[in-house]
């Protein structure tokens, strides 16, 4: 409860200091996004950084919130209502805008786990059938097309997102993430999230 109060307080402060970016977009009000994702869309745990995210990925995620397919508790509470009244045109416009903002690396992972995380990212874990992340997400975790950029996202977001699939959330996500992530141990997830949080 304390945590929720703190979150609400933080959000309220952010809302008051967030500069209005609305003027830069035709009819989409970005202010609603900045309350949680930050004034320059760099993210605040648990809301991920959106700056520099792949355009098609953002569009797909907005669609999945709208259709209530991405269904973890935070998505349910915050993103379902946020995406409920977003027209497809507005979603595309928003995604385009966010994808062009320069991303900064959160760098909040555990430095001691970086080497392990890098090894998993680049080579997978063949013995336990974990595919190498690099094949799809790219050598600098930059993503491509509908495959998201992971480099520099916050440790807490990455860890929660990777754990969600094993918990049964977002089961309708694009193949193969629900299966790949469900093969990861908590320690492997912590290592991957740590490594990725530092990737520029």
């Amino acid at each position, binding site marked *: 409860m304390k945590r929720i109060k703190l979150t609400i307080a933080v959000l309220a402060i952010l809302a008051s200091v967030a500069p209005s970016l609305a003027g830069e977009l035709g009819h989409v009000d970005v202010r609603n996004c900045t309350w949680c994702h930050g004034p320059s869309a760099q993210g605040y745990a648990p809301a991920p950084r959106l700056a520099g995210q792949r355009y098609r990925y953002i569009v797909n995620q907005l669609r999945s919130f709208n259709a209530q397919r991405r269904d973890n508790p935070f998505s349910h*509470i915050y993103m379902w209502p946020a995406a409920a009244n977003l027209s497809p045109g507005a979603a595309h416009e928003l995604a385009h805008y966010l994808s062009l903002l320069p991303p900064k690396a959160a760098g909040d992972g555990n430095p001691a786990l970086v080497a392990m995380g890098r090894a998993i990212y680049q080579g997978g874990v063949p013995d336990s059938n974990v*595919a*190498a992340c*690099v094949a799809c*997400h790219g050598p600098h975790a930059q993503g491509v097309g509908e495959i998201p950029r992971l480099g520099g996202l916050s440790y807490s977001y990455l860890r929660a997102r990777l754990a969600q699939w094993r918990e*049964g*959330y977002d089961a309708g996500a694009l193949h*193969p993430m629900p299966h790949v992530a469900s093969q990861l141990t908590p320690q492997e997830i912590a290592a991957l999230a740590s490594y990725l949080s530092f990737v520029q």
Partner: protein
Amino acid sequence: MKWRLMKFYGVGLASGLAILAAVCAGATYAAAAGTSGVAGKMQYCQDCHGISGQGYRGYVPIPRLAGQQPDYLMNQLRAFVEGRRPNSIMSNVAHVLSPAMMHALTRSFSRLDPPPLGGAPRRYVARGRAIFQDGDPGANVAACAACHGPDAHGHGEIPRLAGQLYPYIVKALTNWSQERGRIPSKPDTSAIMEPVAHSLTRPQVEAVAAYLSTLR
């Protein structure tokens, strides 16, 4: 606020149940597939190569394995292990596979038959068909169909090309000598393709790749 709290706890309860259900489902799944069994390993392959082995456009093009010749797949898996075909991801994957597992996986993929992934530029297809079926005698390019078959289904160690991903074929043909036959003391079938790959111009490579990517 009271209503919000109730809603919050409601979500909490629902998510708790969802977690419980997922954990149970996960346990059943792990028991059924296992991580060392063929089914678990097959799913691992499918994570990258597609649920029906149709291939996938990741950051790098990940080839179609569906309907592929088992002998070709066996030879490639050994090539990854031996370093004839340098590829750090596939080398990792292949190193932990026993010969029996390799046989089981290659047979499983050879039996799959999904439609091609598509997405190649259509305007090159006719030109590609002509090169594939008749070659380019003026440029010393033999007809691809002579070895890969008129239907491009391959034979033995000669791979099926029908339905292969356009960007994958383009990459393979343009980088042939960097990606294949890298251990001179262990020559393999990739040597046959080397002069052909070198003779093809970039537009010819793109045309052949576009044609092949449409074939069933």
